[in-house]
């Protein structure tokens, strides 16, 4: 067994740390992330508060961990929702083809034409900013790209002779779809879902930054970054740490996504 590529190890390690701290953030943090302590306002990083405190004296590390839990949870649910809806739509459109496909895809392309974040902003304005509103809005915004990828895969798969062979065996369309087409969509979907996890995380942070995310006082990387702006001169760590969290996590996810693509795409093997 060959060792995975170094970038896969690095990506995996970063994503692993994020997930671990998110898990921990949901159960245990060094301090209460919401507890206000004016005696310890704007403390620089030190032995007690490892990453310092914010303008209300709340521990930054604890808040970052709690925020990781929120962000990872939201992103996971969003990706699951988008992948489920998009796959259902894509498989259906790709398999029935014809007018149904054209209408569905026209609608899909119209949605794709909007930047995901803009779409989510509009939807959030209607739904209202809360955790499930964000999941719904981002989920809807990312469904079209999944539908596109799945539809394309299904279109090429259904011309394969093994799908015809299934028809010759007398299998029903639904069985053929479930037994032969869906499992063969898993590889491209895994790659897409991984990188989508990164985009969703970024969008969620952006929404929070704009004040449309999970409502305060609950911490998110985005709203921590937003509130740090007023104190950038006195307490630079308030901005640096959430920013680092976002960019490192994205880096990790992208590295992992690339490694997955190389592993799952047989054309990238060998050579």
């Amino acid at each position, binding site marked *: 067994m060959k060792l995975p590529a170094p970038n896969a190890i690095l990506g995996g390690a970063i994503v692993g740390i994020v997930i671990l701290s998110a898990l921990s953030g949901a159960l245990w943090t060094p301090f209460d992330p919401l507890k206000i302590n004016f005696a310890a306002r704007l403390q620089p990083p030190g032995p007690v508060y490892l990453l310092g405190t914010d303008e209300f004296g709340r521990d930054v590390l604890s808040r970052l961990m709690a925020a990781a839990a929120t962000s990872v949870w939201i992103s996971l649910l969003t990706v699951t929702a988008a992948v489920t809806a998009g796959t259902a739509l894509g498989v259906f459109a790709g398999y029935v083809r014809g007018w149904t496909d054209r209408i569905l895809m026209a609608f899909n392309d119209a949605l794709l034409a909007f930047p995901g974040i803009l779409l989510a902003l509009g939807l959030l304005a209607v739904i209202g900013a809360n955790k499930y509103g964000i999941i719904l809005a981002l989920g809807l915004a990312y469904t079209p790209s999944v539908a596109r990828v799945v539809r394309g895969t299904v279109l090429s798969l259904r011309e*394969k002779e093994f799908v015809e*062979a299934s*028809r*010759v*065996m007398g*299998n029903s369309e639904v069985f053929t779809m479930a037994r032969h087409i869906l499992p063969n969509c898993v590889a491209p979907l895994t790659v897409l879902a991984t990188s989508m996890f990164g985009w969703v995380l970024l969008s969620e942070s952006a929404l929070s930054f704009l004040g449309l995310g999970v409502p305060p006082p609950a911490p998110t990387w985005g709203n921590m970054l937003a509130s740090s702006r007023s104190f950038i001169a006195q307490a630079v760590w308030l901005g640096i740490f959430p920013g680092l969290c976002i960019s490192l996590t994205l880096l990790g996810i992208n590295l992992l996504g690339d490694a997955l693509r190389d592993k799952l795409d047989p054309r990238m093997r*060998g050579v």
Partner: protein
Amino acid sequence: MAKTELLSVEGLRLTVAHSQMDVVKGISFSVAPGEIVGIVGESGSGKTLAARAVMGLEPPAIRRTAGTIRFEGRDIAQLSPGDLRKLRGARVGMVFQEPMTSLNPSMLIGRQLDEGLALHRKLSPEERRTLILDMLRRVGLKDPEGALQSYPHQFSGGMRQRIMLASVMLLQPALLIADEPTTALDALVQRDVLELMVELTRARGTAVLMISHDLAMVARYTDRIIVMQKGEIVEEGATQDLLREPKDPYTRKLLTAMPHRLPARHIPDAAVPIVEVRNLVVEYGGRQGFLRKESGKRVLHGIDLSIKPREVVALVGGSGSGKTTLGRAIAGLLNPTGGEIRFAGRSIVPGSEGWNDYRLNCQMVFQDPYSSLDPRMTIGALVREALRLVPNMSSREKTERVREVLNEVGLGGDYAERYPHELSGGQRQRVAIARAVVRRPAFVIADEPVSALDVTVRAQVLDLFADLQERHGFSCLFISHDLGVVEQVADRVIVMQDGRIAEEGTRDAVFDAPQHPYTRRLLSAIPILVRTEQDGVRLRWRDEEASPDHGAGASRPEAYASLG
């Protein structure tokens, strides 16, 4: 001796860079000026890599680890990239296998032909144009002037290969490397293109290195043959000698793997044919619009055929003859525009009761063993899936049947646990056959089942197929463009041309006394190897006068039986 060689390769060793595996293991050969040499071998024998290395065109993952290649006395490893470029095209030309991709689709033919000339020869544009037009005329283009202003997609595969040949021969190279130059072409076109190639190169004294898996085809045109297997040269010799007295067992195996005719079987007449097709019409692209009805392109013009129980009927024709469409329509993979298909006397319409019975009894083997098996399922699961809809069969019986069938196709033991990508092409096609016969169908449609396979593997798969057919007695519609294969397996032959049946008859009638001109053309396009008195093999075309001592008919089956 060495002084007079045009190309001499010594101890050439090619290695896959990352795994240190040798794919060409120290081979030596040479080509004299004006000589036509064939390299024959199966896929993976290293024949294409060896030929590409001559032009320094081996793929990046492959390294030349030993050996020298001398062309016109110069070691090509010593040449600067600039000198090497001057050599390519001008002194060594290459014709590739795939005419669909070897011409640039976005360039006019005229520009493409001009490119090489302008690069290698100092001529005025007018002189170049005259040369190009002359050459296009020589390769048989009807309207050379018009061709200059056309794009590759406006030509058929055969025409494109002619144009490719023209573009290479324009530069009057000393050596032409032809890598499976006609494999992608129709049998009819193959012979024309090859004869043109030989004629052009003979006229200019160009040496040819012809690479092919098809021994008969190579034998027809070459002076000398090199047989390669697994990266090594196993035999080399003058074509006549090699055919007459093959020394290496592998060469003998290649020769015996050539399709051959078996004695005709007697198929008893049955009251009801197993499959009957009446006036079948298929149109593509027809569309029922809101107000108007567009009629599509008609690809089948009312086909009638019937297949008796236990009979193997071959459907033969060039590409575009509609044979595959007919097979797919009978398999129920596309809905015919008109006509009727009857199975065991009952008309079958999707959804009817007869349809379910037909589904259980009609199975299909597809052409491409690489795409006909779901890559995510094990061999056992793939074969077992065919039994899913069989009524009244217990799970244990199914398991037992799958094991039995896998044993029958020679994939017993732990093959059931493996995945398709772990199997070779021939093994995959065995799985596809197992999947088709596991239900004990009454009727199997085989669409070019062996055309993607190597010669020796093809022979094994054909034997297996004949064996299963004999044992289980299913009827078969065998679709193929390869007349050699058809001659071996078919009881009856149907020749199709342009969506119509051109000729129909027993195998011996069609092959020995073809009536329709199209059948005669098809038959004349394939060279066949016949055994001679002197214990060897001789090659001839079917349209050549058969010599009295080995006439076309009776003497051949016995002759083949003792060969090898």
